[in-house]
């Protein structure tokens, strides 16, 4: 791994002599490129995990949320616990960590991010409680607090994006998702105001579905697609194989979502066209991910990647179900409304949650390892990253999740409350196993396992000249 190439006697200026003959394309100043303190993303992520645990427990206790009609106070409250408390918290926390690293810059302001955290927690907890009480005036108040936090988040990341050395498909995708997030929040505030003062010309269910697609597809899926162009190559030791193809996937997703939003809002039969555009974008994305994986140098897939790739594979059935539900003149029967619930559940829990769990198995161990051990490298024997968590628990959690997801999705489509309870119970078990594994990781923050460094005699070939 290490070798001495040029003693000073061999070249007057060895550091220059050893540089590659081709010209550098870019230099980085040290002060301009580093990630924020680990406490910042961790507080968002741990809040998110707490919300996930609460949400999974809620669904297990109250399976009617999924087995019954999907437009009522308890369903809306539980949905916002998942999308704001769990998914948004984790994605936002991870973005504060990943965006500077992925785009080789530094976060504009950690202080703003800490303010965002406070506003986010107050906002989503209040919103969930007020949705449950169906007090739309208070939903609007807490929604405004949350929206202020989202404003800080978008501003902070926009300023961060403004200083990146060069734009690429990852940056473009993140910028798109931030735009859709802003639009989602504004649409949510509009819906709340429309509930309070009844001024909206749109059909209530249609505008709720349009709002849900802005957030689910525009922010969550777009963000997952964008960062995966960086993270999948990073963890499989591969590269994006075709940047045009990656760009097309984002372009089709953006165009499809824009059309889908308008056609859903106006209850237009043309929404099927845009559903196909979105599905084509996801197919092109899947093609690129497949190409990245085929070119990978690291052949063995760890459990974190399996979680993530399984989630991406679930985009196929979700897209298929979306196309069916967008079909013109689809009758509004009990089955189709239950299929809509199954579609939302499969998208938020099957795709987004499963993908996030996989990425958290990468992000949290790294954050904890970096905080606990990076300063001791070369001074003490530090554990490897994989020593921080249990692969056995990862495997158990994976299979519990697959079983729970399948059972709950089918039971939701059929409106079978007992089977929904059983499925959600299995999902809760999976989340509990995940939490146990994360606690094992976090224990290294409290009690780092450092051992004295044992010096071994070096072979002659690795000595210095």
């Amino acid at each position, binding site marked *: 791994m290490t070798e001495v190439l*040029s003693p000073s006697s061999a070249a007057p200026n*060895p550091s220059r002599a050893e540089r590659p003959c081709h010209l550098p394309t870019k230099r980085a100043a040290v002060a301009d490129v580093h990630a924020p303190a680990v406490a910042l993303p961790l507080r968002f992520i741990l809040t998110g995990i707490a919300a996930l645990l609460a949400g999974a427990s809620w669904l297990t206790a109250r399976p009617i949320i999924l087995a019954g009609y999907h437009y009522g106070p308890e369903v809306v409250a539980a949905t916002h616990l998942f999308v704001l408390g769990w998914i948004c918290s984790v994605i936002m926390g991870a973005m504060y960590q990943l965006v500077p690293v992925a785009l080789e810059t530094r976060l504009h302001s950690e202080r703003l991010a800490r303010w965002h955290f406070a506003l986010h927690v107050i906002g989503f907890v209040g919103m969930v409680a007020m949705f449950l009480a169906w007090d739309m005036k208070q939903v609007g108040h807490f929604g405004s607090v949350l929206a202020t936090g989202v404003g800080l988040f978008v501003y902070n990341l926009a300023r961060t994006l403004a200083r990146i050395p060069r734009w690429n498909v990852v940056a473009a995708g993140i910028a798109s998702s931030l735009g859709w997030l802003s639009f989602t929040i504004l649409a949510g505030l509009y819906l709340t105001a429309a509930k309070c003062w009844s001024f909206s010309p749109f059909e209530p269910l249609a505008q709720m579905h349009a709002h849900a697609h802005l957030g689910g597809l525009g922010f969550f899926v777009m963000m997952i697609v964008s960062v995966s162009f960086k993270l999948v190559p990073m963890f499989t030791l591969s590269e994006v194989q075709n940047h045009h193809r990656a760009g097309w996937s984002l372009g089709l997703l953006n165009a499809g979502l824009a059309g889908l939003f308008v056609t859903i809002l106006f209850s237009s039969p043309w929404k099927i066209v845009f559903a196909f555009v979105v599905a084509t974008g996801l197919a092109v994305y899947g093609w690129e991910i497949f190409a990245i994986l085929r070119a990978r140098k690291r052949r063995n897939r760890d459990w974190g990647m399996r979680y993530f790739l399984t989630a991406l594979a679930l985009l196929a059935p979700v897209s298929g179900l979306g196309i069916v539900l967008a079909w013109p003149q689809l009758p509004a029967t009990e089955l189709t409304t239950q299929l809509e619930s199954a579609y939302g559940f499969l998208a938020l829990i099957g795709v987004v949650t499963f993908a996030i769990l996989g990425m958290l198995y990468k992000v949290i161990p790294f954050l904890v390892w970096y905080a606990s051990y*990076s300063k001791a490298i070369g001074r003490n024997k530090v554990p490897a990253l994989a020593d921080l968590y249990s692969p056995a628990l990862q495997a158990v959690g994976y299979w519990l999740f697959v079983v729970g997801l399948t059972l709950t999705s089918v039971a939701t489509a059929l409106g079978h409350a007992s089977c929904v309870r059983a499925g959600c119970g299995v999902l809760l078990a999976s989340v509990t196993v995940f939490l146990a594994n994360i606690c094992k990781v976090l224990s290294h923050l409290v009690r780092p396992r450092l051992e004295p460094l044992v010096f071994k005699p070096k072979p002659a070939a690795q000595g210095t000249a």
Partner: protein
Amino acid sequence: MNEAVVNVDARGLEPPQPMVVILETLSELPERAELRAHTDRRPLHLYPLLEQRGFSGETEEQHDGSFITIIRRA
């Protein structure tokens, strides 16, 4: 003037292994030598650790998409 260049090729390693290899090599770096680390990606998490240890690092991207970081005592 530096006496030697110690090369570390950390390409093909999954994060954070490149950082571990570089810092472990750095801990045994001779007094007047400099370290030339070759990585697949820009070693963003390495920079603050270099500063803490009294080193400075300058990274240059290569045309093949890899990065070379020259690390010297500050």
